[in-house]
């Protein structure tokens, strides 16, 4: 019952839009219900092996985004003495998220009809076998459920890992683990359900999904969510000692470049995989994931120039991520030039937020999770309503109304921000209460690598 109907909707809507770029993330429940019986009639469909091949590949690509991708991207930006702590936190938190996902995460997010905020059913993947399938957005097209579970598993793992960028160089490893358990449970799973779950009734369909919000690959679920959590976290955990006084230059931009490259490479799985099929919509998401990123790189560097600095590699890498974040909700909901627009706007705005605004506000969102994922996610999620327009090469049909879609996007973003902010605060306070939250000042000075893990990153 999970997604049988979504595709029906997608098809109908897509008919006007040229069967392009329509994601399951944009459903009008009314249509869906009407169409449901048609699905039931069909014989149990078997997965197309091309779709299965692509979705397995996409899943592996998202894995590459986490370790080594994100681990290196973040790790390169901290000081040598904290390198291992970043790497350890990311791999451990990802592992935790994977175990939690098969235990109850998938259940809460996609397990079956319950209410608008969470799912229920399939606890411990009960009843799922290698023969189980889930529907995609196209009528009669399914993929193996284990592949879908694994694909979505990687999303939950990378999202919680992203949050840690705001808290590096000071948070206890135990605090990170406690935070991850609580946060995934009360923030990630509900938001994933709200944005992506279509139930059998309005009451069981995710709240935001029910509104008809567009989020192709996770602008709200992943990026706004992680960005807000990091902001809340860095306010609760506090600044690093010596922030804005000591030299805290990245210890290896080479590692950050490798991480950027692997994030970009993996993001094709993230975005084009979110089509759930190897089709033209995935192809569109693919090319957009090139053009938006390219624009992000160039426009961040141009903004650096405009602000009186040199175009830098860290700027290029940051711009790439900003572009990738911004195109995420729009990947299949935009043409290649709409994607360039998104990348350019995100490149300019995020650069300004990170280089100018942040210093003024004075919070220590250490690796700019809010500045890039939060802000980039907001830009992408809201502007997706605009890139849908055929005038910009977008795939919207004739009956598409910009104003109302814009309003839906803004409302959705608002709910995501609020839910994430409150839930994250709870998660961080619990982590602090249970573990103390921060390492001692001495460990912070000597580095978390030795203090928390008893190792040194480099022994040249």
């Amino acid at each position: 019952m999970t997604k049988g109907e979504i595709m029906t909707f997608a098809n109908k809507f897509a008919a006007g839009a040229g069967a392009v770029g329509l994601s399951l993330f944009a459903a009008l429940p009314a249509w869906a219900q009407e169409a449901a019986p048609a699905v039931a009639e069909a014989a149990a469909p078997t997965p197309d092996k091309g779709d299965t091949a692509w979705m397995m590949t996409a899943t592996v690509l998202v894995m590459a985004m986490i370790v080594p991708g994100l681990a290196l991207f973040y790790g390169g930006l901290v000081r040598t003495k904290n390198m291992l702590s970043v790497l350890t936190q990311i791999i451990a938190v990802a592992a935790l998220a994977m175990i939690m996902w098969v235990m109850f995460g998938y259940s809460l997010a996609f397990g079956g009809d319950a209410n608008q905020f969470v799912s229920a059913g399939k606890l411990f993947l009960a009843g799922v076998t290698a023969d189980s399938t889930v529907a995609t957005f196209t009528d009669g097209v399914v993929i193996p459920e284990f592949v879908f579970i694994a694909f979505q598993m990687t999303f939950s793992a990378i999202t919680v890992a992203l949050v840690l960028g705001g808290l590096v160089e000071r948070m206890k490893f135990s605090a990170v683990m406690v935070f991850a358990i609580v946060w995934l449970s009360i923030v990630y799973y509900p938001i994933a359900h709200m944005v992506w779950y279509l139930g059998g009734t309005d009451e069981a369909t995710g709240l935001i999904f029910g509104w008809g919000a567009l989020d192709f690959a996770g602008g709200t679920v992943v990026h706004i969510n992680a960005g807000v959590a990091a902001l809340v976290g860095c306010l609760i955990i506090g600044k690093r000692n010596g922030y804005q006084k000591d030299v805290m230059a990245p210890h290896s931009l080479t590692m950050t470049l490798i991480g950027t490259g692997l994030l970009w490479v993996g993001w094709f799985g993230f975005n084009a995989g979110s089509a759930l099929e190897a089709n033209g919509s995935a192809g569109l998401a693919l090319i957009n994931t090139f053009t938006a990123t390219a624009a992000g790189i160039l426009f961040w560097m141009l903004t650096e120039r405009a602000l009186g600095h040199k175009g830098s590699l860290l700027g290029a890498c940051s711009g790439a991520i900003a572009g990738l974040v911004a195109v995420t909700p729009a990947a299949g909901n935009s043409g290649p030039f709409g994607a360039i627009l998104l990348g350019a706007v995100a490149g300019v705005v995020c650069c300004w937020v990170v280089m100018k605004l942040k210093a003024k506000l004075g919070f220590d969102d250490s690796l700019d999770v809010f500045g890039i994922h939060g802000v980039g996610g907001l830009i992408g999620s809201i502007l997706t309503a605009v890139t849908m327009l055929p005038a910009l090469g977008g795939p919207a049909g004739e009956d598409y109304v910009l104003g109302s879609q814009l309003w839906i996007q803004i409302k959705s973003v608002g709910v995501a921000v609020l839910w994430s902010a409150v839930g994250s605060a709870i998660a961080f306070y619990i982590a602090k209460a249970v573990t103390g939250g921060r390492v001692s000042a001495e460990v912070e000075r000597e580095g978390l690598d030795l203090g928390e893990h008893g190792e040194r990153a480099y022994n040249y």
Partner: protein
Amino acid sequence: MKLILAIIKPFKLDEVREALTGLGIAGMTVTEVKGFGRQKGQTEIYRGAEYATNMVPKVKIELVCDDALAPRVVETLQQSAGTGSIGDGKIFVLDVGQAVRIRTGETGEAAL
């Protein structure tokens, strides 16, 4: 014997070594150091965070020679290490009481 301690610009090291070899100096010891002085370091910016390093990479040469040679070593050093621009570095001369060659146990000037 004298210990001659010179702090110079790193890219001058090869030239200096050749000039000193020309004088008959058979050995020296070189260390990478950071210098703080009139010369200012370059500014680095990472996502808006500016770090103006006032530490400039330098190379320190330590060289022990007999008293007679010391003035010429200093002179050669000064000439070969100089570029005329700020941050060229310093030469300091200290007295050495004793020198030993570990391999042979020779002492004094024979050890150099």
